[in-house]
């Protein structure tokens, strides 16, 4: 059986499973659809949240970025888990107590203003669309590989599949489908990692293998990796970074963005009790950590395997001949995500870091430049092939990658469409819209969102995980501060909140667009996106944390200069703080 058939079998079987569960669960009760997670045990809810949360960015893209950046990209690991601490302590229990269903609902009520609600809707839509661009980038990579087509064709196919998947939206709300998706995703991620960890370190658990001995050389794995990449002019894998300010801000952006993304928060609105909201956050983090503790092992081992494939005799000896390259390089070349150019016409594949400091050594070895370009987003998907694992493992990772990308993309499209049809049109522009009209508006906005995301996904402003990181920056600068101030301060009023959200959102967008192009349209950036151009060395990916600081500052300043918060809103704030009944006044 060819690899292509096996991939189709695995992907087909996993989809049949999701649809099957969806039909089975829906037959049980339609109520389940609306109260996703209601009455479901916190462990199950945590698993479903983890499936919702882990997207193409976590599954497909993240380990590739860590492999390329080494220690410097640990930011993704800390940032995308540390946000749950904030969520569990600063938002989830209180929003659960508040008891409405969407983020704009809370902001609109707490800041007693339709404008605040509208601004929240705008922030939500901008962050979600950016997020979908990242998902499309990842899904495009996955589809192009498994259907063995060129990358942009893969992206188009992904767009069509995601659109239909989202229109069948019911599946999204059903907790058990998401539990199944989580299982497929985590098994698909872990099995190849276990195989590779056994090959390289004789250790069964990849997370431990990362810090174990490399069997072949007898050195610690990370020391071996450092040595290999150093020989080829790359920075040491474990090397410390110089720009710590940027590293801190980037991690912070991801953390507060996690706690400000509407599709994550919403899961905590629907658990039965405030106490359960706290436990659910913990369980979600446990299930996320299963992947996140494995990811750094996948990253380092894949990097080492990649280097060993190109330099079978070690980095100081000759590299492989292009004519004898392994099959996985050939298949990925079809997608255009691996490129080879024989610059010195020796028929071999020179893969090294083409920097001035390595120039002398490269020239001495007769090299005329780096000849192999490997897109970072392919690493996780190519990983089983690089390690020569059996074809069923490759099929499995295809199914896992698609589960991750499709579930999150569809969820975000649903969030966008409900924000447009429910919050924007019905809530403000035309309250008398018919139910049919609302549904039509939802479908149209979904369609527009996917067209925009696909167009921008063809020339994405970065690798999948980086684009997703931009979405986090936007959420961090706009939504998180408003929610937090809404709970922890009785002084911030509607004017303050609106001014704060706008200041945070606009400053962050302007900073991002300056370096990455207006509305991410290629070639429209005003400054090249290089560290020398960044303000105080802060990258556009990291600016969200500063945007949040701006948001808080503006909100407090404006609030202090304007009127007090009305009495009944202060009571609302009181009431969300205590799990029992309503706060003082309303209770009696």
């Amino acid at each position: 059986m060819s690899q292509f058939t096996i991939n189709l079998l695995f992907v087909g079987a996993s989809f049949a499973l999701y649809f099957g569960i969806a039909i089975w669960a829906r037959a049980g009760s339609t109520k389940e659809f609306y109260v996703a997670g209601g009455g479901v045990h916190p462990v199950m809810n945590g698993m479903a949240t983890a499936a919702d949360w882990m997207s193409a960015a976590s599954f497909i893209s993240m380990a590739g970025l860590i492999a390329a950046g080494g220690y410097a990209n640990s930011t993704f690991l800390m940032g995308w888990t540390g946000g749950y601490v904030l969520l569990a302590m600063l938002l989830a229990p209180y929003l659960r107590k508040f008891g409405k269903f969407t983020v704009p609902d809370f902001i609109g009520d707490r800041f007693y203003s339709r404008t605040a609600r509208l601004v929240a809707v705008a922030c939500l839509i901008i962050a979600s669309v950016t997020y979908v661009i990242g998902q499309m980038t990842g899904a495009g990579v996955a589809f192009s590989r498994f259907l063995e087509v060129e990358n942009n064709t893969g992206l188009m196919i992904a767009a069509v599949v995601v659109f239909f998947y989202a229109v069948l939206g019911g599946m999204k709300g059903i907790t058990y489908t998401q539990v199944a998706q989580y299982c497929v995703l985590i098994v698909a991620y872990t099995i190849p990692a276990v195989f590779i960890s056994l090959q390289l370190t004789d250790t069964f658990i990849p997370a431990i293998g990362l810090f174990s001995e490399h069997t072949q050389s007898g050195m610690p794995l990370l020391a071996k990796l450092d040595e290999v990449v150093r020989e080829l002019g790359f920075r040491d894998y474990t090397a410390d970074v110089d720009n710590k300010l940027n590293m801190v801000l980037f991690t912070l952006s991801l953390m507060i963005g996690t706690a400000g993304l509407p599709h994550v928060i919403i899961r905590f609105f629907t658990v039965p009790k405030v106490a359960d909201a706290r436990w659910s956050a913990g369980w979600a983090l446990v299930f996320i950590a299963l992947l996140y503790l494995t990811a750094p092992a996948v990253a380092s081992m894949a990097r080492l395997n990649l280097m060993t494939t190109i330099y079978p005799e070690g980095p100081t000896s000759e590299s492989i001949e292009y004519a004898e390259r392994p099959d996985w390089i050939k298949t990925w070349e079809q997608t255009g995500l691996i490129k080879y150019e024989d610059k010195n016409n020796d028929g071999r594949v020179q893969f090294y870091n083409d920097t001035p400091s390595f120039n002398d050594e490269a020239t001495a070895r007769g090299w005329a430049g780096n000849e192999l370009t490997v897109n970072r987003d392919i690493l996780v998907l190519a990983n089983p092939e690089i390690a020569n694992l059996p074809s069923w493992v490759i099929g499995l990772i295809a199914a896992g990658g698609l589960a991750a990308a499709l579930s999150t993309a569809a969820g975000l499209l649903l969030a966008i469409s409900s924000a447009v049809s429910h919050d924007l049109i019905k809530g403000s522009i035309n309250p008398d819209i018919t139910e049919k009209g609302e549904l039509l508006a939802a479908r149209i906005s979904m369609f527009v969102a996917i067209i925009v995301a696909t167009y921008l996904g063809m020339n994405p402003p970065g690798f999948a995980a980086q684009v997703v990181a931009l979405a986090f920056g936007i959420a961090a600068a706009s939504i998180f501060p408003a929610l937090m101030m809404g709970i922890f301060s009785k002084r911030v009023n509607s004017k303050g909140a609106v001014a704060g959200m706008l200041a945070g959102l606009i400053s962050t967008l302007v900073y991002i667009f300056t370096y990455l192009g207006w509305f991410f349209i290629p070639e429209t950036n005003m400054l090249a996106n290089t560290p020398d151009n960044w303000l105080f060395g802060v990258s556009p990916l990291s600016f969200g944390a500063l945007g949040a600081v701006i948001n808080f500052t503006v909100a407090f300043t404006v609030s202090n200069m304007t009127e007090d918060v009305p009495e009944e809103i202060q009571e609302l704030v009181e009431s969300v703080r205590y799990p029992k009944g309503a706060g003082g006044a309303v209770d009696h």
Partner: protein
Amino acid sequence: MSDHTQNQENYWKANVRLIFGCLIVWALVSYGFGILLRPLLANIEIGGTDLGFWFAQQGSIISFIILVFFYAWRMNSLDKEFGLEE
């Protein structure tokens, strides 16, 4: 009525104190050990690299899990202590 409010106020203060403590640990394991203080931990070796690298790639995540469960457990018992549980 005023006792009732006083009780709620104490509950909220205890909650904020607890959050504050947890967030200090949260910042210490990630921004501290994982990033800014890494040079200080450079001599503590673990699996071919230093402790700061471990905190950045795994240690912080494990600490976050412990923190969230600790907070949930502590708060749920505070709810009972103050008679504010659902």
